[in-house]
């Protein structure tokens, strides 16, 4: 019984530059991710980590190598089949939230379900929003929510289809420290419940919340280590709050 959700072998993404030059955004990357893992892919900007995530998330196609998601080879799938895989097996969280403007939280979370075969989409979307702690913000538009709340709507949208894997691309990139910790804490809670999470970041302290850290440079994996003592975002947040509380009470 194979328990891996991602099996990548020699993944490569080459861009042709003018004049015959080639640029390797992803170079011979092989990795395996098991169900229930919380993996951070870390690298500087331009290291190829986002391209790798896009390929793993079926948003982009590799130019070489093979990729199995949930034991299904996706390298040979058509655009339509890939769309179905993204819809059923993958949830995305982006740096800039990517919520539809002038559309309330509930409808934003319903978005992936519109393209699924589910019929009870409003109930599922409501449950997802409740699970990220936004029960009282269901009918608010993105413009009426804080950055942290907007990102939680985006996480609810990623969760609503009950996917195998959640990909988060710099999810704290646009947030302040406290909101970042809130989001990281939410990911840790989800992972504790068994959700597989792949987090892409360039910040070392954010990556330290994950239980496994893969470092990327120039399109190659330079290290892949288990993080035996991940930082606890929930505790960090309480520490931050307790520092503030005396000030507020004074």
């Amino acid at each position, binding site marked *: 019984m194979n328990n891996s959700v991602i099996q990548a072998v020699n993944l490569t993404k080459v861009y042709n530059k003018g004049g015959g030059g080639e640029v390797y955004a992803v170079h011979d990357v092989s990795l395996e991710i098991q169900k229930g893992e919380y993996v951070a892919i870390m690298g500087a900007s331009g290291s190829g980590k986002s391209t790798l995530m896009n390929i793993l998330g079926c948003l982009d196609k590799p130019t070489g190598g093979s990729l199995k998601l949930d034991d299904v080879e996706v390298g040979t799938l058509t655009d339509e089949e890939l769309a179905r895989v*993204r819809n059923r097996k993958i949830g995305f969280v982006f740096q800039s939230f990517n919520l539809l403007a002038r559309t309330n939280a509930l409808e934003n979370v319903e978005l992936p379900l519109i*393209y699924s075969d589910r019929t009870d989409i409003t109930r599922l979307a409501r449950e997802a929003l409740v699970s990220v702690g936004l029960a009282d913000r269901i009918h608010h538009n993105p413009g009426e929510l804080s950055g942290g709340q907007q990102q939680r709507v985006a996480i609810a949208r990623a969760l609503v289809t009950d996917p195998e894997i959640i990909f988060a691309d710099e999810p704290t990139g646009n947030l302040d420290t406290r909101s970042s910790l809130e989001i990281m804490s939410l990911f840790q809670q989800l992972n504790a419940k068994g959700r597989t999470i792949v987090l892409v970041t360039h910040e070392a302290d954010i990556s330290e919340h994950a239980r496994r850290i893969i470092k990327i440079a120039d399109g190659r994996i330079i290290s892949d280590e288990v993080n035996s003592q991940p930082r606890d975002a929930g505790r960090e947040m309480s520490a931050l709050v307790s520092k503030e509380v005396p000030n507020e009470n004074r």
Partner: protein
Amino acid sequence: MKTGRVLKVAFKGLGRNKLRTFLMMIGIVIGITALTLVVSAGMGAQDRIMERVKKFGLESMMVFAGAGREMGQPTAGQPATSLKLEDAVAMKQEVRAIADVAPFNQKRQADVKFQDKSTTTMVFGVTPSWAPVWDWDAAEGDFISDEDLTGLARVCVLGPTVKRELFGTANPIGEQLRIGNVQFEIKGVMQAKGTSPAGGDMDNRIYIPLTTLMRRVTNVDYISNIKVRLTTAKDMDKTAASIQALLRERHKLAPGTPDDFTITTPTEVTKMAEKVAGTFNIFLALVAAISLISGGVVVANIMLISVNERRKEIGLRKAVGAQRKDIMLQFLYEATAVTLTGGVIGIILGAIGAKILEAITQMPTSISWESVALGVVFSSLVGIIAGLQPARRAAALQPIEAMRA
């Protein structure tokens, strides 16, 4: 289920940008309004033709003095003098298909006086056969009789309008009135016939014996028309040909010279009127088509801009699992919903416009299911055609490219 949800997405997209939606719609509204107006006017004209033909009678034809005459057209210049009373008598005797003939002549403007009241009316010189041929008799008193005709009697029958003008509700029968300087005794009042297809009041007339008109009023030896009633509506063209041959022989026209009379049959009337209405309609339909096309171009343009502006939204939808088909349908639905809504508004405005047009110009219009169906079909078609290319472009976007924008 899923299709319904994509449809809902399309409507929400339209609601989110009302100005854009309005701008897309306005051209279609104008186009469909024009189209509805044109079709209503066309249908109205057709109704009028049928009404005209029915009033004239399907088993009838008309012989006019002079070449190239048409129904309901006033004589220009000198009146034609070629047609004589004897021609009518000969036609009835020699052409077998003719059941009866009603020769007549008219004085277009005559002053009529009764005591201190006066009015202007048309005076028709007719024979007793007028009543059966036109199916139009006296309602009170009597119509012109054979004795009146042979005796050149100074008797007249009033149209209801003339009666109302001069006598009000009083009984005119037996009274004397003056047509010009000649005194006539009133012997009857005609049945009301209302407005003629050309718009004139068919009841503002006075009928006198044809012989009396020719000798005592207009002092001429010719008549203007012979209305012919046939035994059957069949072989209309054959009968027209034998009348033509007879009249050419009687008028001693050499072969090659044109007729000095005109024969009009109901089919000819219909064709003529349709030709006039057809030219008019082609012109207006062209205007409607041009405004629809420009409306469609506007929709296509704004949809293209909209697709470009919403690359991010499209990318997101694809990232979370929308298929090409879903995106394609979303934008096609948006375009079609706009044009169809514009079309329905256009149909309503067009119908209102047709009624206003009718009130102002007296031109009959007719809102039919055809004009509504045309409006719905054309507006949907414009939406689908205008939306196709923008929708394709949106559907072809790669999720990753669109996300970067």
